[in-house]
């Protein structure tokens, strides 16, 4: 059986490239209010792609994007990289169960996952650098990301149309 063509392989890189671009854009100075309304781009993209189409979201990509998030967010290097890696592994394992899931269930599970990831990051930051942001701010960050999920999901559906179909 012939493997994927180069064109197909390039198309499979599209979600990763979009995530990278969105991550960089999210770090631009755009604050209108002094409230962080920027969602956690990498985790949202992980939720959208790792469970729907795992080959587009390999563990190495997840780790590298997490590492870049660590750098841009100012969190200890390795913390978001590890959390994104574990989230990807978890979602890959859940792919069979969630592949036919209804949107509202998918959103509910995404909210739970985001809450867990934000809490773990908050704990990890406190353990490594001893300065934790207030719990309220961490919860706000998770909430903002949760509200953005439908937007990212719709965008992901658009990107999925451009990808090679899986057999």
């Amino acid at each position, binding site marked *: 059986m012939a493997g994927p063509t180069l064109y197909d392989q390039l198309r499979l890189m599209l979600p990763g490239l979009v995530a990278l671009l969105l991550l*960089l854009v999210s770090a631009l100075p755009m604050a209108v209010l002094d409230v962080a309304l*920027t969602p956690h781009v990498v985790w949202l993209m992980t939720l959208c792609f790792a469970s729907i189409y795992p080959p587009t979201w390999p563990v190495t990509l997840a780790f590298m994007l997490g590492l870049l998030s660590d750098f841009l967010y100012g969190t200890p290097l390795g913390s978001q990289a590890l959390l994104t890696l574990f989230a990807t592994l978890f979602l890959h394992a859940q792919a069979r169960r969630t592949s036919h899931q209804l949107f509202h269930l998918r959103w509910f599970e995404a909210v739970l996952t985001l809450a867990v990831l934000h809490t773990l990051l908050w704990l990890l930051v406190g353990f490594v650098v001893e300065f934790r942001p207030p719990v309220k701010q961490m919860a706000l960050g998770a909430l903002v990301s949760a509200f953005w999920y439908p937007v990212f999901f719709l965008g992901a559906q658009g990107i999925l149309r451009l990808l090679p179909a899986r057999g």
Partner: protein
Amino acid sequence: MGRERYNYQVSRAGAKPASQRIVVALLVLAGLTLLVLSRTQHPTLLNLRVHMLDMLRPVMTLISQPVTASRKLVTSTGEVLDTAEENRRLRGENETLRHWQSVAQALKAENDALRKLMQYQPVEAVSYITARVIGQSPSSFGQFLTVNAGKAEGVSEFQPVIDSFGLVGRAVEVGEHTSRVMLLSDVASRVPVIMGHGRQRAILSGAGNGLLRLSFLSSEEEIPLGEPVVTTQEGDLIPGGIKVGSVFKRDGNGYLVKPLRPLSQAEYIRIIVSKPRVANPPSVAPTAPLSATILP
């Protein structure tokens, strides 16, 4: 949204190949190593961050162009619409400033004379580097700005950073042409301050939510709300007298200070570059030794 349009068949061969397991194990090991190095604040990690800063600079500058352009467009449109009102306000301000100019000239002459009389030795001459903000931290986990000036422009670690309103933060990571500024509102930020009128000293720390908190107050005296807060030269890291904000409210943990404007909204900042102390300083203070390098 109903069912998804694209459902992909997932392989039933659940087991991952051995090579992927090795990759995962290596990535976990790399992540843990980075965390341990972060915990011990290893210099290698700081160098890595600095290199990443420099690597990302061209990309961030390129991507920020449309954002900067649209910001300018919005600002200039607003300015055009408010021209008449702005003109009237400026006329009034001009009259007030003329009055204060004459007062300042008289005070300066008096100050010069007194300094000469006391043989006052000036503390230090400072100059500024003006830089553009090209990035900011997108979450509340850390509050930072990335600016397009680094070692090559004369920036070094812990130098204070101001904007047109007052103190913004300090440079914490300095690359060749890029630096990262920790905002005062970051939970790890600590700055010595003094109250404008009451003269109580305190340490100002970030509350993590855009506000600042006063701790280690030098006296138990009540601080009135609205009291201005300025920097002190204690520790010799930040010049004294730079405006920070005003006392905003009191809660169970003490006083909260509101910056003069949201710190993350700075577009251009100035990094205060201290010059080395002179061996035999002149007995009279030099007149406003400000030199500024403005980066595009």
